[in-house]
């Protein structure tokens, strides 16, 4: 790659710059551009509407499924006949203490 080539190339860039004609936009340039802008806006709105619609549909379907599931569960489970205290004492009977290895403390022993 000689300096001659570099010089020639520099001259070529300058000639190229001069040889390029001015580019004028056609009369349809602006209408076409605004048409493209509006088309893209419409497509963006359509996509947004589709996503929103899909999201609402899925949410409604989930609500419906949970409502039905909870209604079915209510029907299958018998209503509580006893009070909360009764249910609690049934759950933890007094003989459970035997399993807890309850040991009286030294004070309690001396009182005896």
């Amino acid at each position, binding site marked *: *790659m*000689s300096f*001659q*080539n*570099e010089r*020639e*190339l*520099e001259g*070529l*860039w300058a*000639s*190229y*710059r*001069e*040889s*390029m004609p*001015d*580019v*004028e*936009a*056609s009369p349809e*340039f*602006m209408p*076409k*551009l605004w048409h*493209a*802008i509006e088309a*893209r806006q419409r497509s963006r709105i359509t996509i947004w509407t589709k996503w929103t619609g899909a999201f609402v549909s899925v949410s409604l379907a989930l609500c419906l499924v949970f409502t039905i599931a909870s209604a079915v569960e209510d029907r299958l489970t018998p209503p509580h006949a006893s009070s909360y205290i009764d249910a609690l004492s049934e759950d933890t009977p007094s003989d459970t203490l035997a399993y807890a290895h309850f040991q009286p403390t030294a004070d309690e022993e001396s009182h005896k």
Partner: protein
Amino acid sequence: MLVEFELISRAKDGDAAAFNRIILAYRKRILGTIARLIGRPEDVEDVGQEVFLRLYYSLDQLRTPEVFEPWLYRLTVNAAYDYLRKARRRYESRMADLSEEHVQMADAAASTKEQKEGLRKTGIREFVHQLLESVSAEDRILLTLKEVEGLSLKQLEQIYHVNENALKVRLFRARQRVLKAYGAANPQEATALKVEEAKG
């Protein structure tokens, strides 16, 4: 700047009339740049449409109106780059590819001085386009912006968001690649090189 900062701010806020005035002000310059970057007159307007479309949808991301021009150049460069990557097809029937006989016939047919001048300019354009086709789209765009558009390193820094040293390296490498292609495309130079090699 071809427009007032205030006009850019208005366009940024969604003023369609202001946006229209910006396009009218920059249209010719941008189309000219695109023509030199891609070298295909038939597609210049389509790429120009893409540039202004991208401008419309990204104007709200512009930090300050002061950086509008580098921003617009950046959009232009990106659109041209996308185009060149997609349309990496070779020139079909072009003057540079025609046989010598065809060129002589075309030259003979161009009787007037204007026609001959037009033919000369076409020849230069075709040769430069052919030369730029032989390098990557990145090299092509960078060299065109520097050598043909005449942008300074400072302006290129703003467009490419890289420092001056990195740009100089990129430019040097791009120039070397084009010089290599030029040496290969220039038969006289190729012959001279062969003679030099034979002497060596």
